[in-house]
């Protein structure tokens, strides 16, 4: 059982950084330049881990990133990787979709305590922006997930994947997929909604005091977290993955779509992004809910 968990974790870490490296390369090619090597974000995290010193504002600041990382790792472990359910199922039999959705919020809230404790007003502003944006992001995503749960008569991800054997949910519930994809963009922090750590506006928000090892942990947890969200979207709407290659293909397709949207559009302000999220995708999700 523990070997399964370990493999899942290592795969999430590896794929997360690979995709982040790919993101930097693809957006570099869109900009018209050769981006860094694929493993660049891996080098960044190793360098940050092995720095000599990093400023520490007290035990709560020390615990903040750790809670954030454990939140991200828990999210990954509770999502089954494959839909045939024998290997790499992780802890999903003990939890269900609602538990996973709440784990996605546990990490940022834990980090909020750490960021609040060092007293930098930019950190507090970044956290408030994160929580306000979360308000807008959660509505469409949760309504879409509620629709799926009601349609499949169960909240267990395994059964939802099993029910998609012949038609994927993306075809069965297209409206729910659209709403979920828009807020999925926000969860990944892509451009229209990346208001949380906007360097030009809030001096890089929550990560303002993260030095050396804290920044390293923040980067690696965000890699794991983004892979977990990709995986969740694949499991819910693209019928889960049959084999490792199928997993890579599906997550990559979703990932590339979010990258291109991120590269073209600028950034909304917090109020505009939540306003948009509460209007367009939420209405689509509610209409989709009625058709379930």
């Amino acid at each position, binding site marked *: 059982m523990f070997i399964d968990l370990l493999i899942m974790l290592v795969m999430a870490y590896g794929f997360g950084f690979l995709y982040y490296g790919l993101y930097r390369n693809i957006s570099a090619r869109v900009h018209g330049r050769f981006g860094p090597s694929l493993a660049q974000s891996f080098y960044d995290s190793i360098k940050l881990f092995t720095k000599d010193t990093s400023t520490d504002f007290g035990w709560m600041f020390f615990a903040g990133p750790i809670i954030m990382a454990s939140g991200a790792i828990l999210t990954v472990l509770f999502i089954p990787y494959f839909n045939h359910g024998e290997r790499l199922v992780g802890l999903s039999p003990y939890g269900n979709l609602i538990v996973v959705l709440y784990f996605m919020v546990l990490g940022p809230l834990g980090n909020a305590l750490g960021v609040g404790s060092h007293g930098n007003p930019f950190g507090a502003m970044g956290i408030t922006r994160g929580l306000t944006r979360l308000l807008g992001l959660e509505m469409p995503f949760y309504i879409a997930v509620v629709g799926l749960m009601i349609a499949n008569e169960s909240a267990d991800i395994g059964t939802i994947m099993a029910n998609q054997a012949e038609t994927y949910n993306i075809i069965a519930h297209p409206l729910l997929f659209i709403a979920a994809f828009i807020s999925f963009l926000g969860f990944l922090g892509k451009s229209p909604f990346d208001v949380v750590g906007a360097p*030009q506006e809030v001096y890089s928000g929550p990560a303002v005091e993260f030095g050396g090892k804290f920044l390293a942990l923040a980067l690696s947890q965000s890699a794991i977290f983004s892979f977990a969200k990709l995986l969740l979207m694949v499991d819910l709407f693209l019928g889960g993955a049959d084999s490792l290659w199928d997993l890579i293909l599906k997550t990559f397709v979703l990932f590339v779509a979010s990258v291109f949207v991120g590269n073209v559009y600028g950034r909304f302000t917090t109020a505009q992004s939540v306003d948009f999220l509460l209007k367009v995708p939420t209405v689509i999700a509610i209409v989709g809910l009625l058709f379930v």
Partner: protein
Amino acid sequence: MDSKLIKIFHGPQHPGITGNMSVELDLLGETIKYARTHVGYLHRGFEKLVERRTVIQAFTIVCRICVPEPDPNEENFARAVEGLAGIEISERAKYIRVMVQEMSRLAAQMLWMGGQSGSIGMGTVGQWSLFDRDLMLDLFEELTGGRVYHMYTYPGGVRRDLPEGFLLRLSELLDYLEKKLPKYDSIFFDNATFKKRAIGTGVVPKEEALKNGYVGQTLRGCGIRRDLRKDNPYLVYDKLDFDIPVFDGGDVYSRALVRRGEMRESIKILRQVIAQMPAEGAIMQKLPKHRKFTLPKEDIYVATESARGEFGYYMAGDGTEHIRRMQVKGPSLIHGFTLLEKMLIDEELSNVAMIMNSLGICPPEIER
């Protein structure tokens, strides 16, 4: 103390600031209740240094006043010295000077586009526009020997003649830019997020715009047709026909459209300059004893239209070879203080970087 406002700095070390200056903000939540601009981080005491230098020594230092766009400084300095000493420069030198001015305006607009789109998180536009600006800087390097600081416009004409086939390469670059500008429209000017963010933010009230002495895009952005090249023409601008793009709306979006129009106008002017440039004519009017060139005991005020507005020079000579006084007034002095501190009240914190970019505030002009 039970103050509900928190004080933050949009400070010198900040990715969202245009140059090395800082704006001190009092915030209620993320709404700005009080703003105060701090400058002085780039003060080198130009005017003190110029008083110790002769004309040719001051010439090398003058172009280093404003970094994104050095050419209006050189043009002002040259015309001020020529005005004081009563030197008349040849027709060909005037055309070359107009060409240099318009090329530097194009480069400055493209740099602005990078800054403006960067302030709202659009990475791609900044990369493309700075690439095109670099092509223009290559032409400058070929003409003057320096990428950004050209030290080319010298009192009495220009320092060197055009290299072989320079005008041909310039027109090729203009064709390339003409093909590229529609691409910028689709990714930046008509971009949905830019429109949603830019329309209605940072509005300049039209009635007090002229009275408070605003210049450049700020005026043309709120529907007042003012351009020094047309109103107070210098060099050969009266012989060239170009129009001035004006949009009323007074907000960040109309100022962006004004700049978009100006890029097309600059290309049109450069085309006419290439066509009408006289083939021969002395490009350099030799100054008498130029190393010890003495200025008469007089003062003069000259101004040119830079990419951000009217750039004014007051210069006074005192009969010796040293310049008695040279005072620089850039457009950002008024935009950065009276306009910015009033406009940021009740504005959102996330729009500060965008507004400062759209006003084109460049701190070295303010504190020299």
